């Protein structure tokens, strides 16, 4: 026990409500995330194919790699830019500015917000996971979630050695997004690969273990201002949250109790845990408000939770 | 099985590779043909479907389909070559939207002018045609029905059409689309030589030291001939090519001298050339004295527009008013020895062709005002060119013409013919050559190139024009009518002596209700004629019945009431005659698709539905005035007909076509060598229609120094067409000259034996002074024709000249070439060629869409400032193949008053951003 509080004796578990209203409430974050993901796609798609404009300016031209909002504000993928820089090239000023803007925004929101709320691959991997749970597939092997940092390091090293942005050239995310925005082609094979990997080989295999883009944003995660707040007092340690969490390691009760919120960079702010917590111990909160009291420390030095 | 084929294929490839090392002439293709790929193919000779060049091709068929085409290496015209259209000859038959069933406008099971097109049976279609034609005859008499065939109709089709209309329905309202392309050349041939068609031939290209193009972009319009001209230029390095044009075009690429002139300035330039020939003492006196006379005619002949503004759009009225009174501009005034600003009443509108003899001194006096300064100032077409440079070019042009050591050929096409004074410019060109004695000699001559594959063979020779009978005979000539009636076994005075409506008049007749039944074959006049908005409206709104025989949906088919699915070129037996008098016949290669039928079959079936009593009784025809004819009437000839063995119940089919002689020509015939005959098959009468009609027509030619060879001769393996007259089995290369023309006697040197218009009154430059006709048998005329300005001029509002025409990739209105995807891709839309500065001035740049507007309408078109034509400032060019860029409806329907051929080359337009 790391907390001095007494815990309620009755451990309740999450039950999906029978009413539609209740269901919608339980699914509210999924619905919101899908809406944001699809809306983002739609903005790109509509601007390209239907010529969407506001005040005569194209709404959102480009794709997740780089784009232009309202014909004026450049946006770019900071990880892609980092790779280009690693490859020894200096990208255009517009792209550098765009990357800085995007970096700033996500740092503010919590880096991996991108993963759960924007990245189109999230839909694919979530589907694979849901299906996997229904069918009951077991992991083929164990892989450390830290592998992604190796991949990240490798991506930068390869960018330097090949002279091109190494991950961008094979990124299934880029492929998927381009296929969705610009038209469908063979790229779905790559996406299918990720889907099958997540379905048959490893739970959360791509997003939770390999994706260097996710790793990149994880690094920026701790600075995020919107975080999952944790109320240790009401928590019964029922473990439902850990079960639904795509990044189980982030739900470290000790650290969460100490900090009053989940600070680990890998947290994607997906809100699954918030939605199912039977005691409402978890909620979204602003880091500035909740954590003022607790010092930020030791997010990565976890001790094993007794079982 | 497959491996066996593959093995055979391997072996032939190995053999070819082996043969190639020592240059044994077995190409890889030839081998593949001989082996696997060509198994079951049969090759036969044919003719290219497109321009007037008349290239020979070889057609391969297999399983009832044309599978390949190649240039015929034995054809003297093209020696195995084709242009890009010729390359696709075999493909034009197989467009996706080929018409295969008769389609009629119907509502509630009956014909309805406002109905939609519905497939009907041939019987139903013919029933309606019969009903409508009989109604037209009853309402309007013979002139109530009209027919528009084509310079692409086959010889037999033209002959059938002409006989059906002129002998059957006694209507001269038949006029081919060749009126739109060759009529000025025809009239000039008549007036100058008394007989149609060129004295020279294509062999002259290899014999000439200078070739002068007058309004002929041969590089695009006669691609394979151009390759011969280029070859001559390359191999005989002293050869000069001159391109006289209103804008720089692809023919300028190899030209040594390019003269960009203002529209109509050709009239002035030629008078300058004539003046210089005299001034430099270069007249070939011996030739001129012996073989030529001088002549001129009136200048106040109008502009071939309607004399009334009743039908004119409001915007058209100002120009149309000049039809009756024209005010001379300063250049016309000088050229016609009058005061600028003189109002000239156009008194000779209806007698535009009359002319009289003048003296050489008169001629000399007439060309005197056309000095270098005067003509250069008038004619310079590129505002950016320095005047001195232009003058030097004109001088060089004369240098080339008069050089005694140079053989000179002049070629022209639509720049001359589609001209409000088209006959005049033709005549002026002959004048130049005749003055120099450089005509009808090997390597020397003025040569009119035809645009269409059988403008000569069908439209002209067979006589499908409203004024013509077969073999150069005329409907308003009593002797010619008599000859024709005898040939055709008609009662005397069956033929209508009054010249019928030309194509433009037929369309105008449609507009004013004069024509009730119109049958259009092998042409798309509602897209090709100028100012078509008038007739497009008339076709749908007037009480008329328009039949269109077509292979593909066209604008014309769209405004028709009945569409007949027509067989295309190699789906029937037929023949073409090209610009050098070469007649080429081919066998049917494949059957027409679905219910498509040959035009000959359609006309014969139609003829079965009329009895002599329907058509040979007394008929009212306004304006008929001739010996043996009651005024305003065609006499009843039924009684005379009985003497010839006909009864009132005899059908036109029996009387005109299935005659006893013709029925003797039996099908099958050994000449067919196993080829089918869709006409005979559908007619089910057992006689060889195409051969019988050709042989019947041939009798005319033999009587008129126009001799064609017998039908079977053209099918001999060693024959690739023959240039008529074919006398004693020998073709004629040069006419009118001793040693080549069998009709010129020894010692005569030259004999311009054409019989027409060969007795003339005498006068001065202004009028006749002695009406007594002088005979000028055997002589050619050297005409003086003054400069005349275009009737529609550019002004502050319509500030650009519009010229329309063809491009290499597409044929006419694109009805065939646009069906071949590969060809369509090469030029998918018509663009407007324009000077970049003119575009910039209008806020336009390359690839922008602009409106082009004239007094008669407007269309949208893409601006091209870089393309194949380099326009001088002030001029634009748009090709007319593109239905979506319907450019000819913007063109003024002013015509040459003598030839009635419209002028597509000079309309005033404005261009602005769309």
């Amino acid at each position, binding site marked *: 026990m790391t907390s001095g509080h007494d815990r309620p004796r009755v451990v309740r578990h999450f039950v999906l409500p029978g009413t539609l209203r209740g269901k919608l409430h339980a699914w509210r974050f999924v619905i919101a995330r899908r809406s944001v993901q699809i809306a983002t796609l739609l903005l790109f798609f509509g601007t390209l194919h239907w010529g969407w404009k506001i005040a005569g300016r194209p709404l959102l031209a*480009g794709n997740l790699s780089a784009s232009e909002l309202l014909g004026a504000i450049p946006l770019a993928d900071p990880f892609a830019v980092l790779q280009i820089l690693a490859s020894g090239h200096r990208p255009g000023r517009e792209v550098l500015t765009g990357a800085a803007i995007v970096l700033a925004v996500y740092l503010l929101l919590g880096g991996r917000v991108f993963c759960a709320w924007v990245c189109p691959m999230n839909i694919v991997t979530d589907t694979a996971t849901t299906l996997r749970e229904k069918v009951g597939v077991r992991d083929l092997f164990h892989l450390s979630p830290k592998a992604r940092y190796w991949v990240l390091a490798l991506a930068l090293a390869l960018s330097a050695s090949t002279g091109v942005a190494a991950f961008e*050239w094979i990124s299934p995310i880029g492929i998927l997004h381009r296929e969705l925005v610009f038209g469908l082609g063979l790229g779905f094979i790559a996406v299918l690969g990720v889907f099958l990997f997540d379905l048959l080989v490893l739970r959360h295999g791509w997003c939770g273990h390999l994706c260097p883009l996710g790793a990149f944003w994880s690094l920026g995660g701790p600075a995020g201002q919107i975080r999952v707040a944790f109320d240790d007092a009401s928590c019964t340690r029922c473990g439902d949250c850990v079960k639904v969490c795509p990044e189980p390691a982030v739900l470290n009760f000790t650290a969460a109790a100490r900090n009053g919120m989940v600070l680990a960079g890998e947290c994607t702010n997906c809100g699954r845990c918030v939605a199912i917590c039977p005691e409402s111990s978890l909620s979204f909160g602003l880091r500035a408000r909740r954590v003022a009291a607790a010092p930020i420390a030791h997010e990565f030095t976890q001790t094993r939770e007794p079982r | 099985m497959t491996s066996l084929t593959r093995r055979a294929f391997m072996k032939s490839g190995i053999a070819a590779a082996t043969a190639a090392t020592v240059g044994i002439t077995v190409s890889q293709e030839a081998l593949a043909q001989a082996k696997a790929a060509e198994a079951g193919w049969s090759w036969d000779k044919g003719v290219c479907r497109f321009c007037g060049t008349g290239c020979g091709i070889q057609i391969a068929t297999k399983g009832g389909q044309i599978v390949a085409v190649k240039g015929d290496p034995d054809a003297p015209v093209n020696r195995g070559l084709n242009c890009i259209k010729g390359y696709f000859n075999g493909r034009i038959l197989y467009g996706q939207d080929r018409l295969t069933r008769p389609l009629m406008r119907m509502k509630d099971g009956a014909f309805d002018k406002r109905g939609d097109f519905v497939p009907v049976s041939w019987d139903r279609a013919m029933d309606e045609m019969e009903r409508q034609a009989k109604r037209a005859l009853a309402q309007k008499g013979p002139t109530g029905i009209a027919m528009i065939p084509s310079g692409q109709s086959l010889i037999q089709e033209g002959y059938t059409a002409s006989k059906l209309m002129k002998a059957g329905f006694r209507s001269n309202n038949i006029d081919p689309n060749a009126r739109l392309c060759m009529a000025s050349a025809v009239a000039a041939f008549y007036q100058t030589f008394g007989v149609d068609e060129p004295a020279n031939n294509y062999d002259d290209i*290899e014999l000439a030291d200078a070739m002068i193009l007058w309004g002929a972009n041969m590089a695009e319009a006669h691609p394979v001939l151009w390759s011969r001209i280029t070859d001559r230029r390359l191999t005989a390095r002293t050869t000069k090519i001159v391109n006289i044009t209103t804008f720089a075009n692809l023919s300028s690429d190899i030209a040594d001298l390019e003269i960009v002139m203002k529209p109509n300035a050709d009239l002035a330039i030629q008078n300058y050339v004539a003046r210089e020939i005299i001034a430099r003492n270069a007249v070939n006196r011996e030739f001129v004295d012996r073989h030529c006379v001088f002549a001129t005619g009136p200048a106040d002949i109008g502009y071939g527009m309607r004399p009334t503004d009743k039908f004119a759009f409001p915007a058209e009225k100002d120009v149309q008013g000049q039809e009756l009174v024209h005010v001379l501009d300063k250049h016309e005034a000088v050229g016609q020895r009058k005061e600028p600003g003189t109002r000239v009443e156009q008194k000779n509108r209806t007698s535009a062709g009359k002319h009289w003899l003048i003296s050489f001194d008169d001629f000399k006096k007439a060309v005197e005002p056309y000095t270098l300064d005067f003509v250069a100032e008038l004619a310079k077409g590129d505002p950016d060119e320095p005047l001195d440079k232009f003058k030097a070019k004109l001088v060089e042009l004369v240098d080339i013409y008069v050089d005694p050591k140079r053989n000179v050929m002049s070629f022209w096409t639509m720049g001359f013919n589609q001209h409000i004074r088209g006959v005049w410019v033709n005549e002026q060109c002959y004048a130049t050559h005749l003055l120099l004695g450089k005509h009808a000699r090997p390597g020397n001559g003025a040569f009119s190139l035809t645009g269409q594959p059988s403008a000569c063979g069908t439209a002209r020779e067979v006589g499908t024009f409203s004024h013509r009978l077969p073999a150069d005979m005329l409907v308003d000539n009593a002797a010619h009518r008599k000859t024709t009636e005898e040939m055709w076994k008609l009662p005397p005075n069956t033929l209508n002596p009054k010249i019928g409506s030309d194509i433009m008049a037929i369309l105008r007749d449609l507009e004013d209700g004069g024509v009730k039944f119109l049958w259009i074959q092998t042409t798309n006049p509602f897209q090709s004629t100028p100012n078509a908005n008038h007739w497009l409206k008339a076709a749908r709104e007037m009480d008329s019945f328009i039949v269109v025989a077509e292979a593909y949906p066209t604008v014309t088919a769209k405004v028709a009431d009945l569409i007949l699915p027509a067989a295309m070129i190699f789906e029937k037996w037929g023949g073409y005659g090209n610009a050098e008098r070469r007649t080429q016949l081919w066998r049917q290669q494949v059957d027409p698709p679905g219910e498509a039928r040959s035009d000959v079959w359609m006309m014969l079936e139609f003829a079965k539905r009329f009895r002599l009593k329907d058509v040979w009784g007394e008929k009212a025809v306004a304006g008929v005035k001739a010996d043996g004819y009651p005024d305003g009437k065609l006499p009843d000839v039924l009684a005379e007909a009985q003497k010839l063995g006909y009864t009132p119940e005899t059908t036109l089919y029996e009387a005109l076509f299935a005659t006893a002689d013709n029925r003797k020509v039996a099908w099958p015939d050994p000449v067919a060598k196993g080829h089918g005959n869709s006409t005979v098959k559908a007619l089910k009468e057992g006689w060889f229609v195409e051969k019988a009609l050709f042989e019947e027509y041939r009798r005319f030619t033999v009587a008129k120094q126009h001799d064609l060879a017998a039908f079977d001769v053209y099918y001999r393996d060693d024959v690739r067409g023959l240039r008529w007259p074919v006398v004693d089995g020998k073709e004629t290369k040069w006419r009118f000259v001793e040693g080549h023309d069998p009709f010129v006697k020894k010692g005569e040197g030259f004999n311009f034996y054409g019989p027409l218009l060969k007795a003339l009154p005498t006068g001065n430059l202004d009028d006749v002074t002695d009406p007594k006709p002088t005979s000028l048998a055997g002589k050619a005329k050297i005409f003086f024709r003054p400069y005349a300005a275009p009737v529609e001029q550019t002004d502050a509002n319509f500030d650009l000249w519009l010229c329309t025409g063809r491009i290499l990739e597409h044929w006419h209105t694109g009805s065939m070439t646009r069906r071949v995807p590969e060809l369509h891709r090469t030029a998918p839309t018509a663009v407007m060629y324009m000077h970049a500065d003119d575009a910039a001035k209008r806020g336009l740049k390359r690839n922008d869409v602009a409106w082009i507007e004239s007094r008669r309408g407007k269309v949208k078109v893409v601006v091209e400032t870089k393309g194949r034509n380099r326009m001088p400032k002030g001029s634009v060019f748009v090709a007319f193949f593109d239905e979506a860029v319907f450019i000819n409806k913007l063109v003024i329907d002013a015509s040459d008053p003598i030839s009635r051929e419209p002028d597509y080359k000079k309309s005033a337009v404005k261009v602005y951003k769309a």
Partner: protein
Amino acid sequence: MNDSSRTRRDFLVKGAQMAGAAASVGFIWHALVKSEARASAGALRPPGALAERDFAAQCIKCGQCVRACPYGTLSLASVAGPAATGTPHFEPRTVPCYMCPDLPCTRACPSGALDPALDDVNRARMGLAVIDEEHCLSWQGLRCEVCYRVCPLRGKAIVINTESRKTSRHAVFEPMVDSEHCTGCGLCEKSCPTELAAIRVLRPEFVQGRIGAHYRMQDKASRSGQAADAPAAAPSPRIAAPKPQAAPGVDYLNQAAPP
């Protein structure tokens, strides 16, 4: 072995395993990227594209050039497409480049992969048209020359050379491409009427040779007298004089002469 040494050994083994895995993944990934990034002859880039290596590195695959093209010419390559996945390219036989004077695609590029310094579309070098003379109708004597007539730089990028056909009285109109002017827009390939285009636009590096610096062709400029050859540069002082002893061939030459 004690616990600490076992842990130490585990750690070492695990480290080696991870390093091995990373190395093998890295190797495959490297190979994948290399093969992807390899230019293909038919992958034509928008006007202003940098040299393929730099373009590959700099292009961020955002597709803004694709959006900017008013003719739908450009597309982003799909997996197994003719160009590296995600990069913009065009296939002239489908839609060629119509050479907009205002270069909207180049202007749209945020990454600098399309050179913002390009200001005249006529200076773009998207590719180079190459004629297959054996299957070119014009070279075989037909009057086609469609490529010549559609070429926006007609008379410069494509010229017609007329030659006598010798075997008959006809000339052959041979289209020829001048690499100095050809932008590679591909209108010629688009318009070529043969079943498979006999004129193709390919990346110049796949079709152009190099004469070598040791020889100078009589080039067009000097032929027309517009530019004379520049004077030879002075020899670089940095090249040190070779040591006499080490001269190539000396050893052999100093051997005893053969008997």
